[in-house]
C-alpha cells in the first residue's frame, strides 16, 4: 500500500516536470477493452499529438492509416481539418468510416513546411475535433511545436506519416514528441462463408506510447461510426448479434 502511494507520488512529480503535456483533457476510448487497457487513461489522449503510419506498401499510400485516422476523427466532436500535399483521398471512403463530407475541410498545402504551419495554426484554434496532417518529414522540433499547439484543447492531432519511397520510412524511428505512435498494416480480410472479401482487417501496432508499453492487435477496420472491432474468432466471447452480417460490407 505504501509502495502504491509512493508510485502515485512519483507519477505526480513526473507529471509536474512534464508540464502541461500530461493529457488532462480526457481521453477518447476506442471502445475495445483490449486496446484501451494498453493506453494510459484508457483511451487516446485528447489535446495531444498522435502519429500514424502504414506498414509495407502503406508507408507510401497510407490508405489504412488514413481510414484509421478518419475513424478516430469521426468519434470526436467538431469540424475536422485534413491537411495534405497529395490530394488523392477519396471522400466517399471517409464517409464510410463515419466522417461525413460536411465535417471535413481539406487543406491542400504545397510542401511539408506548409503542412506543418497549417497544422499548427489549426491545432491552435482549439475548437476543432481533429486535425490530420499528411506529412513525410517531421523533426523532433516540428512534433514538439505541434504538441505544444494542441495542449490545453480537446482537439486530437494526427500526424499521418506518408513517404515517397519505402526506404524513407526509417524516419519513423526518429524521436518524437507525439504521445502515441501507431503503425497500421493490412491483413487478409475476415473469412466469409461465400467467395468475396469480408470486413477488412488491420494489424494495428502501438509502436510507442508515453507512460505505457507498446502492443500489437489484430483488429477489424472501422465501421460506419468509426469503431474498430475485435475479430470474432479472436475475441473470448461470441460477437454481438447482428454485428457481423451488417458490418461485413464495411
Amino acid at each position, binding site marked *: 500500500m505504501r509502495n502504491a502511494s509512493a508510485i502515485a507520488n512519483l507519477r505526480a512529480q513526473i507529471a509536474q516536470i512534464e508540464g502541461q503535456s500530461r493529457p488532462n483533457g480526457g481521453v477518447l476510448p476506442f471502445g475495445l477493452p483490449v486496446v484501451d487497457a494498453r493506453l494510459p487513461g484508457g483511451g487516446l489522449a485528447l489535446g495531444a499529438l498522435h502519429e500514424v503510419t502504414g506498414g509495407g506498401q502503406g508507408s507510401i499510400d497510407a490508405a489504412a492509416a488514413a481510414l484509421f485516422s478518419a475513424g478516430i476523427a469521426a468519434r470526436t466532436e467538431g469540424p475536422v481539418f485534413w491537411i495534405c500535399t497529395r490530394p488523392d483521398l477519396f471522400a466517399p471512403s471517409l464517409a464510410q468510416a463515419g466522417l461525413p463530407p460536411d465535417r*471535413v*475541410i481539406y487543406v491542400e498545402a504545397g510542401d511539408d513546411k506548409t503542412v506543418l504551419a497549417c497544422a499548427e495554426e489549426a491545432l491552435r484554434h482549439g475548437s476543432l475535433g481533429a486535425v490530420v496532417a499528411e506529412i513525410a518529414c517531421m523533426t523532433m522540433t516540428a512534433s514538439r511545436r505541434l504538441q505544444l499547439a494542441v495542449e490545453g484543447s480537446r482537439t486530437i492531432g494526427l500526424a499521418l506519416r506518408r513517404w515517397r519511397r519505402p526506404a524513407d520510412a526509417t524516419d519513423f524511428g526518429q524521436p518524437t514528441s507525439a504521445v502515441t505512435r501507431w503503425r497500421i498494416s493490412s491483413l487478409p480480410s475476415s473469412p466469409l462463408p461465400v467467395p468475396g472479401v469480408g470486413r477488412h482487417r488491420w494489424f494495428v501496432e502501438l509502436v510507442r506510447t508515453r507512460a505505457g508499453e507498446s502492443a500489437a492487435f489484430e483488429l477489424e477496420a472501422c465501421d460506419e461510426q468509426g469503431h474498430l472491432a475485435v475479430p470474432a474468432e479472436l475475441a473470448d466471447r461470441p460477437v454481438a448479434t447482428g454485428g457481423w452480417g451488417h458490418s461485413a460490407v464495411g
Partner: protein
Amino acid sequence: MALAKAQMLVPGLSIHDAAPAEDEEGLHRLALWILQRFSPLVSADPPDGIVIDSTGADHLHGGEGAMLDAIIGRLAMSGVEARAAIADSWGAAHALARHLARSTFVAERGRTLFLLSPLPLEALRLPVTMTADLRTLGFRTIGDLHRQPRAPLALRFGPQLARRLDQALGEMAEPIDPIQPLGQIEARRVFAEPIAAAETIARYIGKLVTTLCAALEARGLGACRLDLLVHRVDNRLQAVRVGMALPTRDARRLTRLLCDKIETIDPGFGIETMVLVAASAEPLAMKQAASSLVEAARPDISGLVDTLANRIGGRALYRMAAVASDVPERSVQRIPAMAPDTGSGWPDHWPRPARLLARPDPIETMALLPDHPPASFTWQGVRRRVRRADGPERVFGEWWKRDAELEAVRDYFRVEDEAGERYWIYRAGDGEDPATGSHRWFLHGIFG
C-alpha cells in the same frame, strides 16, 4: 482595309460605327470588376488593355498562373475574349500579352530581355510613324534595337524610344495610377515622418482597421476583401490584399490577417501614407453569438479558414460534396470551405477505396472473361496473386451527358492479395462486346 473591300470578302458583314468613348467607359467598368475580384492596383490602359499590379494579390487565387487562368476564364464566360501576361514590368507584360501566340503567359523573373528580343518593334508602345521609320532603317525586333548604341538613336528619334525600351526592360519605373471608385469605405493615415519598422506598420494597421471597422459598422457592412495600399516616399505604391470567406468586421481578426502579410511589404526609404480600403463589402447583420438557453453553437472556424486561405490561397481550402454520378472520379466535387452544409452523402452499399488514383494505372492481368476477377495482376512491376475478390460492380458511361460514353462500361472488382493488401481494379468493357471498352485492366484505388 477599306470597308467596301471587307464587305465584298464577307457577305452579310455587320457594321458598327467606332465609339471610342463608350469603349473607354467599358474598359473602365472592366477594370472596376477586376479591382473587386482580383487585384487592388488596376488601371485601364486605353485603347484595348487593362494593367494590373498582381503583387500581393495572386496568393488568394493560388499563384500567378492560376490567377491569369481565372481572369481569362471568367471573361470568356461573359463573352470577352482576352489575352493576358505577367512579367516584371508593365511594358514587358504589355508586349507579351499582345505578341505571343498563347492566351496566358507568365514570364520567368529576370528573363525579360530574352523573352522580348524576338518580338517585333510594334510591341514597344511607340508611335506608328516612329516604328515605320525604324523599320525603314532595317530594325525588325526589339533585340535589334537593344543591341544598338543608344546615343545615335536618341539623337534621331528623341528620348521616347530609349524611355520605352527601358520601361519594357524594367530599368525605369512606370507607376500605375490605380482607379479608385467613388464611395469606397476607406481609412487613411498620413505620416509626418516616414515609417519603416515592421512593428510600427503593425501598430498603424491596427489603428486603420479599428477606424475602418467603425465605418463598416455604421453602414451595417462586413468586409469580404481588404486592400492595404502603401505609398512610399519614392512614389512607389504597394498593395496587400486579404480575402475573407464570410463578410466580417472583427477588428482583431482583420488586423491579424493583415499583419501576417507585413513581410511582403518592402518599405524602402519609408512609408508616408497608408490607406486601408474595403474593396468588397457585403451586408452583415448583428447576431447573438451565445445564449444560455440554446445548446452550444457550432464552433466558428471562419477565422481559421481565412488565416489559412490568405496564406496558401483560397482554392487550396475546400470541402467535398457528393455528385449524383456512378463514375467514381465524377462523384465528388470541391465546394468552398465555408459553404452551407449540403447534407448529402454517397450511397454506401459498396465499399470505396481510401485513395483514388488521379489517373487509373494500367495493370497486366490473367483473368477469365467475361465476369471473373483476375487470378493475378502486375502493378508497378510487382506481381500479386489474388486470394479473394468481390465484384463485378458495373458502372455505365453517362450516355445522357456525353455521346462518347454511349456504350462505355467499367466492371469494378475489389481484390485482395496474399499479403492482405486490397485494391480496386476495373476492366474497361463488359468482357464480351468490344464496343463497350478496350477490355484492358486498370488499378483505380487502394483500400485500407
